[in-house]
């Protein structure tokens, strides 16, 4: 059994989200989020909300907060680029809490060169926008990292995110 299987980190994330009272789980699918999306979709206490682009998630979660519900946005690192203005002009201008769970592409081991530039830009872009970040490389670190950043967001009223690295989730294989 691999370390990933032993720690079953998607289930740990789902449990943390449940404990935090997260109700709206917005997402643009990514392979790394596949299991978590399934868990949230099956959870009657949560509403899984597929988006056409990640940017919708920023406005959606601000609206959820206005209405008294907590939410999170699951996406791949490429999606961060689609959210920039909304994070600046809505989340930060109004100081809405924001909680992002981001699976990384474009790190070491990435075999699609088109993924590399945005992967490299992901953390700097979010930091420039004032989003607090932590990176997770190992399955046993996931639960604590997600819980701490969720608290920073929902209790601290901040924009915060967890970067789930390719070391954690594995790299995509391109093969004919």
């Amino acid at each position: 059994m691999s370390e990933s299987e032993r720690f079953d980190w998607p289930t740990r994330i789902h449990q943390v989200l449940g404990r935090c009272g997260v109700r709206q789980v917005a997402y643009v699918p990514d392979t790394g989020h596949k299991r978590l999306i399934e868990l949230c979709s099956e959870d009657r206490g949560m509403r899984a909300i597929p988006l056409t682009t990640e940017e919708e998630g920023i406005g959606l979660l601000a609206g959820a907060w206005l209405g008294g519900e907590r939410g999170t946005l699951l996406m791949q690192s490429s999606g961060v680029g689609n959210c920039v203005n909304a994070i600046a002009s809505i989340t930060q201008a109004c100081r809405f809490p924001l909680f992002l769970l981001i699976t990384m592409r474009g790190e070491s081991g990435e075999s699609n060169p088109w993924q590399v530039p945005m992967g490299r830009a992901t953390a700097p872009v979010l930091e420039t926008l004032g989003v607090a970040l932590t990176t997770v490389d190992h399955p046993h670190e996931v639960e604590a990292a997600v819980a701490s950043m969720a608290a920073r967001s929902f209790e601290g009223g901040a924009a915060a995110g967890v970067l789930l690295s390719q070391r954690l989730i594995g790299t995509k294989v391109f093969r004919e």
Partner: protein
Amino acid sequence: MSGSRSNRLDRRAAVTELVRDRGALLVVSGLGGTTWDLASAGDHDLNFYLWGGMGSAVPMGLGLALAQPRRRVLVVTGDGEMLMGLGALATVAVQAPANLAIAVIDNERYGETGDQLTHTAQGSDLAAIARAAGIPDAVTLVDGAGLEAFRDKLHAAQGPIVAVVKVGQDNAGMVLPPRDGVHLRQRFRRCLLGDEAG
């Protein structure tokens, strides 16, 4: 292409009609013209005015409607703002919140930036796009009777519902609501949630 402009509705009168006797209605406005229109109809703690984040009015209304299923939610936005986030109509269709109404105040212009033509002046039909996105109850309104009917429907109908309200191109001028986003957020939450707002 867009037909006679002589009988277009007045945007201020149209938005005033939409929020008439609003009761417990929650309202989100898109940045620019529709924020001025909503402010002109009377400031309210349960108005959330966007001053930025173009394209986000409908997603914000959706998140709010899902969080508050027992309250009615109205998004009032412009054609330019709606065009920037068309995918959100498909996202709304999938969630199908019964309590969400979207009114697009369509002057076929980017009124804040020099009245450049939007795509709706040149053939794009937002009501047809909304229907094709999966929201069957999406109509174009060109007169007061249609508007009045939509106003009644947004308090009663099984949503989501969309109305594209064709209005004239007169620039109605700015009516400025509070522009501090933190204040707007907090006063909305306090009014809606009371002590739970924190």
